[in-house]
């Protein structure tokens, strides 16, 4: 075993190395999970059974838990993938999602029980526009003042969460003024259910359409080529490709914010039906792992989004049924990210 492992490590075949890196990553994640279970004295079979039942164990778990959870992860994953491909380090998908959800809640509240055909598009557009506007702040700071977008987007995440905290206790609070949340959405401003008897909503089709469109755009359009060129080597793109790198990256940044804002609007109208502070359990951060595991490929984001969603809802089931802390999923997510960056590095050094 040891010799064959060493053989693969020294193999010149990058695919073998890549596969090995993936195996090592998954192995490390598994070891962490099993060690935690052993340390806490939890029955491994019980915990892993709960993980399976909660994520893929039944048609209801698949449609109403995993796929519903995958929607915001896919949309924010696409947001991060697009920005990273353009060389923009948007760590602010979380804040853009929250602001998108807030704008969607305000719009839905203002339109009241107007017909669904009008309310739903208006709410989704409000989410996208505000997500893009939130990203635009960081983009403006970057272009006008040279402030690293890594730092500004993270700071804006904290501003966004406090903004929601203020809104749900102030201007947008429900009429009885008891709970820190907006009033529950009217039926006309909720996304339609796709599958009777499940919680699967229209957002799943929106996420699918977004992933396919982005894939097509990046593969077949000149705009997609410009984004990849600007991200891969801005100087070469400017000199050899006559690409206005600043404009290209600004557009990608705003589109990235719009996708994250859309995720917030979809989550509000499809799942939570009200705005409150803990609306997102960190979708915007998990999105980074989703995008990296997908190697920034839009269709890969679909698969990675579903995988992380299964992990997430499975972890919740493990906490409920076996007492395993759900925070463990963040550690596993982080190990996957580290595995991917280490693997990418190993390949580059070939």
């Amino acid at each position, binding site marked *: 075993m040891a010799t064959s492992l060493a053989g693969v490590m020294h193999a010149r075949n990058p695919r073998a190395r890549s596969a090995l890196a993936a195996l090592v990553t998954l192995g490390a994640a598994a070891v962490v999970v099993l060690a*935690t279970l052993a*340390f*806490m004295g939890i029955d491994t079979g019980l915990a892993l059974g709960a993980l399976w039942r909660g994520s893929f164990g039944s048609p209801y778990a698949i449609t109403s838990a995993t796929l519903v959870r995958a929607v915001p992860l896919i949309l924010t994953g696409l947001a991060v993938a697009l920005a990273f491909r353009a060389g923009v*380090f948007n*760590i602010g998908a979380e804040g853009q999602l929250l602001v998108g959800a807030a704008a969607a809640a305000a719009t839905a509240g203002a339109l009241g029980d107007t017909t669904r055909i009008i309310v739903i598009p208006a709410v989704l557009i409000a989410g996208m526009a505000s997500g893009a506007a939130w990203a635009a702040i960081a983009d403006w*700071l970057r272009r*006008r*003042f*040279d*402030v690293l977008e*890594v*730092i*500004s987007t*993270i*700071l*804006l*995440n*904290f*501003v966004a969460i*406090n*903004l929601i*905290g*203020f809104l749900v*206790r*102030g201007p947008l609070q429900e009429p009885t003024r008891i709970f820190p949340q907006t009033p529950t959405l009217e039926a006309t401003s909720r996304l339609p259910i796709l599958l009777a008897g499940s919680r699967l909503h229209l957002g799943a089709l929106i996420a699918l359409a977004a992933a396919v469109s982005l894939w097509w755009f990046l593969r077949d359009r000149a705009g997609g080529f410009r984004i990849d060129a600007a991200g891969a080597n801005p100087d070469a793109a400017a000199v050899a490709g006559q690409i206005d790198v600043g404009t290209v990256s600004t557009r990608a940044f705003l589109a990235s914010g719009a996708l994250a804002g859309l995720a917030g609007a979809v989550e509000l109208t499809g799942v939570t039906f009200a705005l409150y502070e803990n609306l997102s359990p960190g979708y915007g*951060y998990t999105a*980074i*792992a989703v995008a*990296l595991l997908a190697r920034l490929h839009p269709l890969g984001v679909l698969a990675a989004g579903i995988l992380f969603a299964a992990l997430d809802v499975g972890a919740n089931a493990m906490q409920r049924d076996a007492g395993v*802390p759900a*925070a*463990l*999923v*963040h*550690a*596993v*997510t*982080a*190990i996957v*990210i*580290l595995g991917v*960056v*280490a693997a*990418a*590095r*190993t390949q580059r050094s070939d």
Partner: protein
Amino acid sequence: MEAFLEAAIRTATPLLLAALGELIVERAGVLNLGLEGTIIAGALASLVAAGTGTVAFGYAGGMAAGAAVGLVMALFVVGLRADQIITGTAITLLATGATGTLYRALYGTQGAALSVPTSGPIAIPLLSDIPIVGGALFAQPVTTYLLYALVPAMWWWLYRTHAGLALRAVGESPGAAVAAGVRVARVRALALVAGSALGGLAGATLVLAQSGTFAEGMSAGRGFVAIAIVVLGRWHPLGVVLAATAFGAASALQFLFQAMGWRVPYHIFLALPYLLTLAALAGVAGRVRSPAALAKE
């Protein structure tokens, strides 16, 4: 006014510890977004270590945990030369998840009772009696006093010693540093471990000197704010002191406003320091220059 000044220094203390740690790391050319993770790791470790009954163990445990997180970061960004921004983000996520899991595993769903020894304010005789500023500067927990020694020591080390020069050279021009016989990888790894130990100490301060217990996510973005403070302080120890104090004052404004009877929503206060940091970052832009090799490889 005295409550305001006292709160300003109290808020600034963990920020300044973390920012000085980040300063060393960035001067070696590494942007450590894992700082947030080192703070939360230090916070939990200090709670566990102080559970033995000694506050000093608590601080040592916090520093050790921070250094361990820094070592992981060094393994990836120095050893494997992985992307600093993505690795740092992942390390923060890892530490957040691991501390949340461990905290539940160790203390159950009820959480830790307020049972660890804490390190309360120590009033220095005479000095703490100075009107207005006495209490703010000289009736603080032990880590604040540590800073009074650490800041000048770091300044002297960075600008007056050979090792400090080597560190700055690695951050400005790794190629030239190599030519001069400096082992770049080793300097960066050591900087990450030492700087992260200070981040862990910042987390220990939050637990032992301020809240008396641990809560999931209690670092609340202080690591990221500390990174911004390093930029505002122009990568200089004294500048960092000024920036951290200003941030502490902004956070403590609520005490001043309460005293004046102004009613401003609580969450606006919570957002204010982040907004002021963004505004300040925009304000200093164009007039500051980061270490030339920062986050380059």
